[in-house]
Structure formats: structure tokens, C-alpha cells
């Protein structure tokens, strides 16, 4: 195991996991002296009736001071400002975020504005901008993928500039994360697949990128195992509460992991595809993950090889030679994507050309590749990727991911080879 000369790991989120975890919310609020929470969610979550059990769980003594249910799929600066205004006018004292990554990140953004008494979110971009503790935040994920309930980062889009801005701070860690299997029970099969693969990507990149450490490694491997053992079951049998809770835990573990070790090129490119083509984040992740692992093989094959154990289990790991394990691990992820495509009746995309909108048109246009590549180069995640990528490398990755064909490794411009396993 690789021990960095120096590393930091922090996660002080109190996690409550269970089939009836929501019922602990009043106790959480009382423990931080709050009685007027604001619920932030989106129309989809509201329509699915997932806010009702939260309100019911609040009991008779605590009532939500307000509900904002119009968070868009891509959290943006304007929405954050609108919600902060409502928060102040209703004199709320805490936030309960019920939803997926967009809702949770929006809630973090709102928390910055209301805690810092500011109207300009851009003042808090980048590391070190926040200096003190924010208002209490309870995160209740309704997807099992973003891990935002456990992360110190909020990704919020500025649609005017067509970029996603990164707000990283230890103060953005929620105070509480409630993992309740009821909250993901109604998640459609293709969302379950994409968000589950998002968690898988967080864990795989956390394990193979530059800021890995022994603690993030442990949580990453556990997350990969939970996803690979439960995702197909959760897609095929949405009512399997054990599988749902396992995926919720996988997402939280992966979030804990990558929040402390960051992610790499898969996220850099995925963020950019999301910002420009508005493809859901989890879809980008599931498609790009095998390419990210492949691209870095000459530096991280020995780490990718270790992913085979949680992906395929002890027997496969032991019966595969050391030299073959990296490729077998990548193939296991591709196989999982294919299985998910089959299980979702073709809704889960395995390559970019399969990503279609409601009208059946391609969401990612080849003409957008140059813009995606340029934007990805400026994504903060690139700093943590083991190998460098320039504009042409980005285009190569996008072209391969469009077609869904594995890389020709000879085309990769390699820096110093540091992997202990030689890949031909």
C-alpha cells in the first residue's frame, strides 16, 4: 500500500444509515439548536413524494419554515441566489437538502450565501475562500451516486459563462447525512444505473489518482465492492431495500473517499461534457471511467489491478495473473456497463454516441469536442490525474469514448512510466 509522505483526511459528517433513518432528523436538528429548517429539493423529488416522509419525520414539534422545490438539474448561481433570498425572508435557521447531486450542491451554495451574508457566490470560488463554520446542513440523498452528502465540494454552474465552478472547503461538509433506503426506492432503473456508476467512478479515481491515501483507499475499495455486488440487483428489482441501502452506503463511502483524495481526468472531461452538452453527470462517468483507467495504465496499472478484487471477487482475482489484472479490471467495468444497458432495456449508455435526448437525438455532438476539450483542460480535477493531457489527448479520449472502442495504448503520449506492472 502506498503511503504518501504527507496527507490530510477529514470527514466529520455524522452518518445515519438505515431503512428508517429519516426518523432521526428531529434529534439532529435539536442537537444543533435549530427549529426552522428550510427544505431544498427539486420538482422530480417533490413529484415522487419523497419530501412527505421527511416532513412527517420532522414530527409535530418542528415544522419546515419553507420549501424550495425548483432546483434545476444543473445547479446554477442564479438558483442559489433565489433560494438564499427566500431563506432570509422566512428567517430559517438550517437547511435540509433532499435530492441528488444538484440539490445537495445547490444547498451547499445557499449555505455559503446565508452564512456569509453575501449575494455573490463567486467571491467564494476556489480553495480557502471560506473561513468559518456555516449553518447546519442535513443532506438526504435521493440518488446513490454523487456522494455529495459526504464531500467538501460543491459544483455549481454559471450558465452565462457555460462553466461549472468548484467550491471546495472543509466547511461545506454537511453536518449530517441521512441514508434511508426509502429515498431511492422509486429511482428509475437508468438513474440507478448511472448514479451507481458515478459512485463507482468516484471510488476508482480516488484509488488511482495522485492524492490517494490509506484511508481513502479503504473507503474506495469498500464502495467498489458494494456497487459491483448490488447495482444490477437494484436495477432489476427496484424494491430490494437491502440493495438500495447498500448502494446508498457505497455512494457515501465513495464520497468520503474522493472528498479526501480528489478525482482525475474522468471527472474533468465529464464535467465539461455536462456543462456544454447537458448530459447527466453519472452517464458521462460510466462511459468515461474505462478510458480514464486505460489512459493512466502506464502509471497506475498496479493500482488498477487491485480494483479487480472488489469488482469481480476473490476467485477471479486469484485466477488472473498479475499482468492481466489491470485490463481485466477495466474489462469488468465495461462488462458492468453492458449488463446495465441490457438490464435497463437499452437506456444505459455505454458510449457517447448512445447518449440520446427525449427526441432520440444525440446529446453529444462531435462538433462540440473542441469546446469540451478546452474546458476540461481547465478543470481542477486535472491536477490530480496521474498523467498529463493536452488538447489533442482530450480529443483522442472523446473520439474513443464516442465510438465505445478501447484505446490503442500506443497513441498515448506517455510520461515517466511508474507502474510496477508492465503494460504492452
Amino acid at each position, binding site marked *: 500500500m502506498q503511503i*504518501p*509522505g*504527507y*496527507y*490530510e483526511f477529514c470527514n466529520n459528517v455524522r452518518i445515519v444509515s438505515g431503512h428508517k433513518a429519516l426518523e432521526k432528523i428531529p434529534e439532529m436538528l435539536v442537537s444543533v439548536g435549530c427549529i426552522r429548517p428550510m427544505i431544498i429539493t427539486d420538482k422530480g423529488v417533490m413529484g415522487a413524494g419523497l419530501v412527505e416522509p421527511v416532513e412527517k419525520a420532522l414530527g409535530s414539534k418542528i415544522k419546515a419554515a419553507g420549501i424550495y422545490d425548483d432546483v434545476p438539474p444543473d445547479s446554477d448561481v442564479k438558483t442559489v441566489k433565489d433560494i438564499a433570498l427566500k431563506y432570509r425572508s422566512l428567517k430559517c435557521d438550517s437547511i435540509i437538502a433532499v435530492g441528488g447531486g444538484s440539490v445537495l450542491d445547490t444547498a451547499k451554495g445557499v449555505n455559503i450565501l446565508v452564512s456569509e451574508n453575501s449575494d455573490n457566490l463567486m467571491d467564494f*470560488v*476556489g*480553495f*480557502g*475562500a471560506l473561513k468559518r463554520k456555516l449553518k447546519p446542513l442535513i443532506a438526504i440523498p435521493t440518488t446513490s451516486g454523487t456522494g455529495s452528502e459526504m464531500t467538501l465540494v460543491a459544483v455549481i454552474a454559471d450558465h452565462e459563462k457555460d*462553466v461549472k*465552478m*468548484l467550491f471546495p472547503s472543509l466547511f461545506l461538509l454537511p453536518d449530517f447525512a441521512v441514508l434511508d433506503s426509502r429515498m431511492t426506492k422509486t429511482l428509475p432503473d437508468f438513474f440507478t444505473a448511472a448514479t451507481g456508476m458515478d459512485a463507482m467512478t468516484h471510488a476508482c479515481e480516488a484509488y488511482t*489518482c*495522485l*492524492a490517494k491515501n490509506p484511508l481513502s483507499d479503504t473507503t474506495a475499495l469498500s464502495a467498489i465492492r458494494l456497487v459491483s455486488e448490488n447495482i444490477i440487483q437494484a436495477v432489476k428489482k427496484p424494491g430490494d431495500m437491502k440493495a438500495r441501502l447498500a448502494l446508498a452506503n457505497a455512494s457515501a463511502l465513495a464520497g468520503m473517499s474522493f472528498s479526501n483524495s*480528489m478525482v482525475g481526468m474522468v471527472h474533468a472531461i465529464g464535467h465539461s461534457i455536462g456543462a456544454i452538452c447537458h448530459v447527466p453527470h453519472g452517464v458521462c462517468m460510466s462511459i468515461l471511467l474505462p478510458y480514464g483507467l486505460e489512459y493512466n495504465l502506464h502509471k497506475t496499472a498496479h493500482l488498477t489491478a487491485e480494483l479487480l478484487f472488489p469488482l469481480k471477487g476473490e476467485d477471479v482475482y486469484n485466477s488472473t495473473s498479475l499482468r492481466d489484472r489491470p485490463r481485466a479490471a477495466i474489462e469488468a467495468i465495461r462488462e458492468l456497463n453492458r449488463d446495465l444497458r441490457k438490464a435497463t432495456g437499452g437506456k444505459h449508455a455505454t458510449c457517447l454516441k448512445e447518449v440520446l435526448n427525449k427526441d432520440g437525438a444525440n446529446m453529444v455532438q462531435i462538433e462540440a469536442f473542441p469546446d469540451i476539450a478546452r474546458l476540461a*483542460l*481547465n*478543470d*481542477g480535477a*486535472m*491536477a*490530480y490525474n*496521474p*498523467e*498529463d493531457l*493536452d488538447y489533442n489527448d482530450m480529443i483522442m479520449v472523446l473520439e474513443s469514448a464516442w465510438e465505445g472502442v478501447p484505446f490503442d495504448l500506443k497513441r498515448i*503520449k*506517455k*510520461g*515517466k512510466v511508474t507502474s510496477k506492472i508492465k503494460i504492452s
Partner: protein
Amino acid sequence: MNINNYPEIKSKGKLLKKIYVAVMLWIVGRAIQAAYRVDKEVKEEFDGLSDDFMLYLNVLPSGPGMIVGKDKNGKAKYMGWNPSGKKITLDMKIKNIEAAILMFTFQESTCLATANNRLAISGAVPDSMAFIRILNIVEVYLLPKIITSLAVKRYPKWSQMNPFRKHFGRILVYVRTFTF
């Protein structure tokens, strides 16, 4: 309680290391200014930064540091070491002098320093990523391959930087760095 009775404690030791890092920061700052005028890629990267770009790369707790920013014509300019009166848009703090030594003896790249929590960055992420790319190119110009290979993830191939551009550019960068 009078706060003036409790003055800030500043580290006093490691003078030689501080001097070494200060000299390196001066060279790197000047070299960025020089490379802007010599290398097309550096110029493009720098021109793409925010209009008010002003970087303060400094070592905690008490320096040394360097400031590089855009002048009124939008060109790269080394602006000394003192941030007072300047509007810093990108603040890169190296957490201590030992971490700075690791970076400036090229045992650790900028990215690895970030990954190892030795470098704290405040400001726009796209600007910081572009600046790291600029720094990588400048290091290629300033240092021999055997050393630069330790400081960057990938030393540029012929297709990215041909020998003429590298060696001719290196001479120009050195001349411009050390002449006023």
C-alpha cells in the same frame, strides 16, 4: 486583552533555504515574463487568463514570495515579492519552507504538491490550471530534461516541442530573464 502584547511569531531559522527559494522564485517569475515574449504557447495560455490576473505564489508563514500578473497592456509581468497594494486574484500558498524546497529542488511537481496538501490555492480554478501549464513549459525552458522530468508529469515529446523551439527558446528565455 491587548493583542499587541502577543506579537505574531515568525520563523527565524532556515535562512539558507529561504534565500534559495527566494532566488528561485525571482528566476521563475522573471522567466514567466520572458517566456511570454518568446513562446507562443505560453503567450496563448497567459492571454487566456482573467483580464485582472495577478498571482501571488508565496511560502507560509512569512515568505518569500513572488507576484506575476498582467500589466496594463495585458502582458505577463513579474511584479516583485510584495503583495501590498496589489489585487491578488490567484493566491498559491506553499505551506512551509520545507515544502517549497521540495518543489524548487524539483523533487515534487506542482500537481503532486497540490495532491500532497502542500500547496493551498485560493482563486479561480481555471486560472490555476492554466498557470500550472505555464509553469511546466517554463521549467522545460529553464532546466535540463533529467531534472524537468521530475517536476512535470510528462516531458514534452518532439511533436509537442521540437528541439529548435526548445533550445532556441531556452537561450532567449535565459537572456530575457537575466537582462533588464
